[in-house]
């Protein structure tokens, strides 16, 4: 493996690469670019929400005809929230997060030369790239990008008569998502096969780092649920273009009765959320896996309750596929189903609570190394709890009635899934940057980035719960049509100020990231004194990852600060790499 069969050209090395490390970088950079677009959009519509009738030249500059006079049109507002949601959920937090770290870490941490199929892996990335391109192109079509919300419920998304974004923009959205799903299925199958088949000698499933467990289970959820969204998208394309009635029935619009008969939008909602809910965990579990690894390493302690953590991941994954109906309590679904989904939904709180408590116990009596990755991981635990707790309100069908589709929901999912997952992603980037690029990121800029981001994230999303409790529906272009919401404007201004600062603070990250790729300090082989296998590979990337034999594994990944009978650290160090054999008198955990 280590001897090269062919000479590498620029194209095979950087473009059509089949090396998992290069593909991870490609995913990360594409994810970051999409993230810039998604976050920028949110800043634009936050301006609209806080200053509804004021003119901003930036809006005119970027939105053109839809922002004439510096005020965006209602249709453009809906497009922005739709595309913001789509990009952040799928392109940044699914592909950008899972795609980057599954690709980078699965082979490195299980001890494999590469993914099971490098070719499939390359196709997976390029399909993702293609779907990103289609999504970006859809922003420029004449009738505007898709604007029916990221959940694209028909009939709104099916009928160009209903809103202009449901024309060509929606078609491109569906095409882009179909390609995206194909990409993510190829990726996920590859991850599953690799984890099952290519583990190095001694790397039992019970010795896998929690990152790998998280990526593995995430891939399984993806394989189970993404095809259902694909079918929903295809059926919607049929309804839109070929006159079928899967989701449409009895519609009178623009002065005429349409021919559709017998379909049901609720069927679409079921299909959508059968992916849509597991998707939350597709986004979240990798972030939790990353933070487990980062927190254990930087606490210089084993992760507390490894087995319970694995069981929780599996339990969450299983439950996540049978709770989708909690998005549909007030859609007209049979109330009995509502009861069932309330039951399964609230059950998810149990494994989530176990995870939360285990993180906290891991911090207890540690020797915490508070580097940026660690701060983001602790921030994740904090926002995961803040956001997760309000799930008890939303998952309870009776309580959901009055907060459904209000800003309470927006606050909840941004904290528990948006912010938590993005914190996990930042933690991953700071932690594995030396593995990705062989250099270190600047720590001071990392700190600054964390502090501004953490404060502004809370500043935006905590007050948001309360405007939801005041009854303010989401996806309102402006609240000026209702005098009862006049007193919410101040809260909106505060949130917008935080949002803009938080958005701009990401420039610090970007500057640090791109600067460090070229000019960062050279990394040592194991900069964080970590136990996992990826830190036994050379700093300079090479095909096959290890020169010579792949090391065998003799222990789990969390032997930090392990002491012998006399209370001294084994080997005088507070970490013991997985490749170190069990010593005389030492008990394997």
């Amino acid at each position, binding site marked *: 493996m280590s001897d090269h069969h062919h000479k590498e050209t620029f194209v095979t090395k950087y473009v059509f690469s089949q090396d998992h490390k290069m593909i991870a970088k490609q995913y990360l950079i594409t994810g970051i670019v999409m993230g810039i677009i998604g976050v920028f959009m949110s800043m634009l519509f936050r301006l609209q929400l806080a200053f509804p009738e004021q003119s901003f030249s930036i809006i005119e500059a970027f939105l053109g005809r839809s922002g004439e006079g510096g005020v965006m049109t209602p249709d453009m507002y809906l497009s922005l929230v739709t595309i913001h949601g789509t990009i952040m959920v799928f392109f940044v937090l699914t592909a950008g997060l899972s795609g980057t770290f599954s690709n980078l870490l699965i082979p490195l941490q299980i001890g494999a030369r590469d993914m099971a199929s490098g070719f499939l892996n390359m196709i997976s990335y390029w399909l993702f790239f293609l779907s990103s391109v289609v999504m970006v192109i859809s922003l420029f079509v004449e009738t505007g990008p898709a604007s029916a919300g990221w959940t694209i419920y028909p009939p709104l998304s099916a009928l160009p008569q209903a809103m202009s974004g449901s024309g060509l923009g929606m078609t491109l959205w569906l095409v882009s998502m179909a390609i995206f799903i194909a990409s993510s299925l190829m990726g996920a199958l590859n991850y599953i096969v690799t984890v099952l088949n290519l583990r190095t000698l001694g790397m039992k499933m019970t010795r896998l780092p929690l990152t790998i467990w998280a990526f593995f289970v995430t891939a399984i959820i993806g394989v189970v649920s993404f095809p259902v969204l694909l079918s929903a998208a295809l059926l919607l394309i049929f309804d839109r273009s070929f006159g079928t009635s899967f989701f449409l029935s009895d519609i009178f619009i623009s002065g005429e009765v349409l021919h559709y008969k017998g379909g049901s939008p609720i069927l679409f909602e079921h299909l959508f959320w059968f992916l849509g809910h597991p998707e939350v965990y597709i986004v979240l579990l990798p972030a939790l896996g990353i933070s487990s690894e980062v927190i254990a390493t930087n606490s210089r302690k084993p992760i507390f309750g490894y087995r319970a953590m694995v069981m929780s991941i599996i339990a969450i994954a299983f439950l996540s596929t049978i709770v989708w109906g909690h998005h549909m309590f007030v859609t007209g679904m049979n109330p009995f189903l509502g009861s069932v989904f309330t039951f399964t939904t609230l059950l998810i709180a149990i494994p989530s609570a176990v995870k939360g408590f285990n993180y906290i116990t891991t911090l207890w009596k*540690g020797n915490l190394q508070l580097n940026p990755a660690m701060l983001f991981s602790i921030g994740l635990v904090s926002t995961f709890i803040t956001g997760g707790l309000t799930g008890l309100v939303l998952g309870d069908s009776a309580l959901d009635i009055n907060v459904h589709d209000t800003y309470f929901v927006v606050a909840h999912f941004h904290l528990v899934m948006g912010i938590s997952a993005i914190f996990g992603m930042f933690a991953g980037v700071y932690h594995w940057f030396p593995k990705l690029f062989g250099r270190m990121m600047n720590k001071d800029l990392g700190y600054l980035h964390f502090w501004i981001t953490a404060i502004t994230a809370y500043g935006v999303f905590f007050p948001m719960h309360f405007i939801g409790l005041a009854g303010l529906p989401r996806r309102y272009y402006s609240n000026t049509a209702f005098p009862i919401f006049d007193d919410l404007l101040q809260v909106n201004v505060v949130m917008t100020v935080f949002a803009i600062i938080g958005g701009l603070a990401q420039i610090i990250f970007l500057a640090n990231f791109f600067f460090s790729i070229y000019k960062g300090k050279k990394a040592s082989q194991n900069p964080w004194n970590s136990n996992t296998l990826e830190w036994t590979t050379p700093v300079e990337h090479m095909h096959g990852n290890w020169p010579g034999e792949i090391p065998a594994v003799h222990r789990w990944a969390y032997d930090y600060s392990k002491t012998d009978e006399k209370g001294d650290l084994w080997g005088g160090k507070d970490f013991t790499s997985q490749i170190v054999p069990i010593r005389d008198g030492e008990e394997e955990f």
Partner: protein
Amino acid sequence: MKALFFIIIFVAIAVACWQFVKLLGLTKVENQTATEKENNINGWLMLGLMGFIYCLMILSLYGTKDILLPQLSASAEGKHIDILFKITMTLILIVQFVLQFIIFYFTFKYRGIKGRKALFFADSHKLELVWTITPAIVLAGLIIYGLWTWNEVMDVSDAENPLIVELYAKQFQWEARYAGSDNELGNANVRFIKGANTMGVDFSDKNASDDIPLMVSEGKFVKELHLPKGRKVIFKMRSQDVLHSAYMPHFRAQMNCVPGMVTQMGFTPTVTTAEMRLNKDTQSKFQRINEIRVEKGEEEVEFDYLLLCNKICGSSHYNMQLKIVVDEEAEFNQWLAGQKTFAQLK
């Protein structure tokens, strides 16, 4: 406000630039994890972040008290929801305050010091059992109470002599139809829509002629929907074009309107509009609102119940509303008697 806004942004950028310049001068190589000094500073800052989060929580809880919906639910069913909501919120807030404290306090207390040994503490069945079983018990309670409430709210089968009202949603307005003297709605389908029959009522159905419509006529929106206090109202919801959601926050009620099917939801109004206007929460909220409105040069408003669309339905989704008026039953009957049935309209 706007000026402040730009100043803050400017400061943020300035700080970023300053840091960036600092970065260019950095050359020293040191321990890659974190130095004792960094641990110390960031440990303290973490306590600061905790302080910020607590301030934000307390400020949000108290500062937004006046902007929330009135504490008093305007429907009998809403009272059950409110009790469950209060129990859940109390629980959430206690857990939130305690756990956030523990996270940040541990981060601060155990910030790294050179030479300190972390405790090798990998597992404890006892502890794990505690935090599996405790949430399980608490959740069992919440689930049971929640399901009881849900059935109480959604089950309308045992209502005696309910008032049947159809809510009809279309881009971007509401129409309504009272079931009339037989208290049964005539059949309807969008395929019957023609001329003045904007709701597509099937006039060949014998139940239809006594129905009382609140229609859009000559381009005028329906102004208000009246409901009686103390009588169960069952809403039958339909939509003409896309999904809509009938959201009546003061009654703690919401149900989607789905094209092609009829959805339903019911509640018993318990507070008339006049009574709600005298409510303390309502008054303090509307006092604030009117202060803001006067400042902006807009006219003052009075409290009214509202029906809002709460499912994205197109460009004017943000302005799809209907005023609801709750009357004493006698007044309501009087008002209803003054409305024309389909038969009378013909």
